[in-house]
């Protein structure tokens, strides 16, 4: 019977990626040469991660992955046993190996060809380390640099007396060995007691086995795998002068560049690369306490439901109060259940922060800067979808801080600061939003440079007298970069505007504050979740729409005389000292309003990317939390609509997307003519 193992692939990949993250964190945390207890625990963690990846990859037949991990494991095993010093060189190689493994696993997961060049390069590097190895312990027998395919093996196998009780049978093992090659067996029965003293359940025998043939050490190990602790075992290669006997715990130095089994090699020509967007179905791990609390909540809901249905069976007006109480309880249950479900999607932000130690480690080395990275608030939770989308903007901001913000050690010393710059990532909850701060104690934004650049690009007039805040804001303008030298880190001028755009698309905002010479702080505010939002229901004609509450600044009644006309067509509303364009929603949506007179409607002032406009609606209805449903899952993206939601009466209401509405407003050709055909 064969089991379809592909169903476990997803779990394997998830665990492996987690393992790789753990390895990376451990490696970065390791100090060169230090072998104190802390570090050995770290090495153990790294080793275990590598070991399980290798095991899993082998099980699922990802032979390239397991072959590659094998060398890694050997190196780590030597470090773990203290046979090898932990050198910076080794750590760097291991980090590169982690990268390669991650690429390999991603390739396997997506079913594309593995990039063998980088894998081979790194595995050669590791092999070189293994070969050049200067084992720390002098008394240790030298590792066997010879390839595994020795002429054969000499095995001394002396089971402990209780071996038979563990269900293992030496006979089977000898048979297995005989299956591998030419086996000759010498029995050592010297330990056999007199018949009267013989315990029938004990094993008194020992064997010396000579196995000839093209056999790897692995194959032999596999056979003895289950009895490792229950016997005295030594395996040594069969060579003219059989000098050193090698213990089982001995680091193994098989030929790791040995080509993997051909069936695992995916032919790159035959299989064109699949689009990366085709990502595998993702899953999340949920703490059992969260699930338990959900079960409790559902239990309460069931009780409330049965109470209400009992009440409904013989209802009288006198029991009205009971009904009201019951409905209140139902509302509370529902809300708690909703919150509980949302919590399942919440993950600590450490998932997003964890990549930064590595990034900072690599970049600061490259740029010759000394940087201390401080992470705080890692346990702050936010929605998984938000987390996935905030990763890239965060990387960008961190790179920027490293590149532009923090100075070189010399400059820092000259400015009376410590050599090591501080980069601080912080996260915390504030109201219904999560705040992420990226601050550094570097030079701060160079206002003069920004201003001159902005004038040069024609973004501001040279005689504009801008407040410092406004100058800082300029860095979010498209095509803006003040880096003197375009490096591969930053300075290409695509940057902060994209960061801001991405964060806006998540319904969040980003701000910068800076003090010359003291550093700068970027503050990102994001909604906790994308699945639910606060909305304002509005009425336009016979339709109801939802405006995201976060975009609404205020709602005003239009008084006569406050509306001005621009070139006879455009209308602007003068709100205090500002003029806001008026967008008549019914025109954009081809609806018949209750009244076309501005005074009869209401103006909802909304903001998008610092621009304010007024949306003319017929009426404001309730404010409520709405569950966002995608229009794309069954239909397509619609300009001006962020999605849809289901109202209390079961009908669908569309959620407005302010940026899309502005696009419709600016480009009237997108607005289709009235559907007169159905008016009949």
């Amino acid at each position, binding site marked *: 019977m064969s089991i379809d193992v592909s169903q476990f692939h997803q779990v394997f990949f998830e665990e492996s990626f987690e393992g790789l993250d753990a390895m990376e964190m451990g490696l970065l945390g390791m100090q060169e040469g230090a072998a104190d207890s802390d570090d050995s625990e770290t090495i153990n963690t790294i080793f275990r991660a590598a070991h399980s990846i290798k095991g899993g990859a082998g099980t699922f037949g990802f032979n390239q992955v397991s072959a590659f991990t094998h060398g890694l494991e050997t190196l780590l095993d030597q470090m773990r046993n203290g046979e090898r010093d932990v050198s910076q060189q080794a750590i760097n190689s291991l980090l590169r190996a982690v990268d390669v493994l991650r690429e390999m696993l991603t390739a396997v997961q997506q079913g594309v060809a593995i990039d063998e060049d980088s894998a081979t390069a790194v595995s050669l590097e590791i092999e070189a380390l293994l070969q050049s190895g200067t084992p720390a312990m002098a008394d240790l027998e030298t590792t066997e640099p010879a390839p595994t395919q020795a002429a054969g093996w000499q095995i001394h196998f002396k089971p402990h007396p209780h071996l038979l009780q563990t269900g293992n049978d030496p006979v089977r093992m000898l048979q297995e060995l005989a299956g591998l090659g030419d086996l000759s067996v010498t029995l050592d029965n010297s330990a056999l007691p007199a018949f009267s003293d013989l315990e029938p359940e004990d094993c008194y025998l020992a064997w010396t086995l000579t196995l000839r043939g093209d056999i790897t050490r692995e194959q032999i190990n596999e056979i003895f795998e289950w009895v490792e602790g229950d016997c005295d075992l030594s395996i040594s290669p069969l060579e003219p002068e059989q000098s050193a006997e090698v213990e089982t715990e001995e680091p193994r130095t098989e030929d790791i560049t040995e080509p993997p089994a051909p069936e695992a090699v995916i032919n790159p020509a035959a299989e064109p690369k699949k689009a990366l967007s085709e990502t595998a179905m993702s899953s999340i791990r949920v703490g059992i306490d969260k699930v338990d609390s959900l079960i409790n909540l559902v239990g309460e809901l069931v009780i409330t439901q049965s109470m209400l249905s009992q009440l409904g069976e013989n209802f009288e007006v006198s029991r009205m109060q009971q009904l009201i109480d019951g409905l209140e309880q139902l509302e509370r249950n529902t809300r708690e259940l909703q919150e509980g479900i949302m919590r399942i999607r919440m993950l600590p932000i450490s998932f997003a922060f964890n990549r930064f130690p590595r990034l900072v480690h690599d970049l600061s080395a490259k740029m010759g800067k000394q940087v201390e990275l401080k992470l705080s608030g890692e346990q702050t939770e936010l929605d998984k979808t938000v987390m996935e989308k905030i990763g890239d903007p965060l990387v960008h901001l961190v790179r920027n801080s490293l590149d532009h913000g923090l100075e070189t050690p010399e400059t820092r010393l000259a400015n009376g600061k410590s050599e090591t710059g501080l980069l601080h990532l912080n996260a915390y909850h504030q109201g219904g939003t999560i705040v992420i701060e990226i601050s550094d104690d570097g030079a701060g934004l160079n206002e003069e440079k920004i201003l001159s650049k902005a004038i040069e690009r024609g973004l501001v007039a040279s005689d504009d007298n801008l407040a410092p805040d406004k100058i800082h804001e300029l860095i979010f303008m498209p095509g803006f970069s003040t880096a003197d030298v375009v490096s591969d880190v930053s300075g290409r001028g695509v940057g902060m505007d994209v960061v801001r755009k991405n964060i806006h698309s998540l319904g969040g905002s980003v701000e910068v504050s800076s003090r010359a010479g003291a550093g700068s702080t970027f503050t990102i505010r994001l909604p906790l979740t994308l699945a639910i939002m606060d909305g304002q229901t509005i009425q336009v004609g016979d339709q109801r729409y939802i405006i995201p509450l976060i975009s609404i600044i205020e709602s005003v009644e239009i008084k006569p005389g406050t509306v001005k006309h621009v070139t006879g067509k455009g209308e602007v509303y003068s709100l205090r000292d500002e003029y806001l364009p008026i967008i008549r929603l019914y025109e954009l949506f081809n609806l018949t309003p209750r009244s076309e007179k501005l005074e009869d409607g209401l103006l909802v002032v909304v903001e998008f990317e610092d621009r304010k406009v007024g949306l003319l609606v017929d009426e404001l209805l309730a404010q409520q939390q709405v569950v966002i449903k995608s229009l794309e899952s*069954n*239909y397509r993206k*619609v300009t001006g609509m962020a999605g849809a939601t*289901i109202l209390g009466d079961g*009908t669908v209401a*569309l959620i407005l997307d302010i940026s899309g509405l502005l696009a419709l407003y600016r480009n009237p050709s997108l*607005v289709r003519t009235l559907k007169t*055909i159905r008016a009949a």
Partner: protein
Amino acid sequence: MIELSQTNEILDMFDVMGRVEAGMQQFLTFELNQEHYGVEILRVQEIKGWDPVTPIPNTPVHLCGVLNLRGAIVPIVDLRLFFGMPYQPYTKTTVVVVLRVHDVTQRTVGIVVDAVSDAHNVHPDEIQPAPDFGEQVSTEFITGITRMDDNMVMLLDVDKLLNSEQIG
């Protein structure tokens, strides 16, 4: 013509019968402007009466809007308008056939038809290719033509008909 309440029963019965007659293809037929059309029955998710939908601004005229189908937002296409036939007000017998469409992903789309007629077993030999009208009439959505109870029935390719580009 049969009442709507019976159609879902027919669907259920048909499911059982359909398995018996191997080698047969099964189609749900419906009427549209006195013409008869058929869709593969395995693509039919459910048949329901007309309920008001939420129109989506700035979409083609044949897209009636979207409907809440047990929590899913499903677009509803008026097949008369889609085929360029005259508009007809929706009545009691107006029926929405909810279909499963295999596009890039699997999607659910509802079509508005005049009335559902029946479910039929058709042997593949009884299906003739769609006639070529040249440029005049587009037949790309029609997989074939067959005869049922003295009526000509055009068999529709749901995936070609209702992919996201087509319904716009």
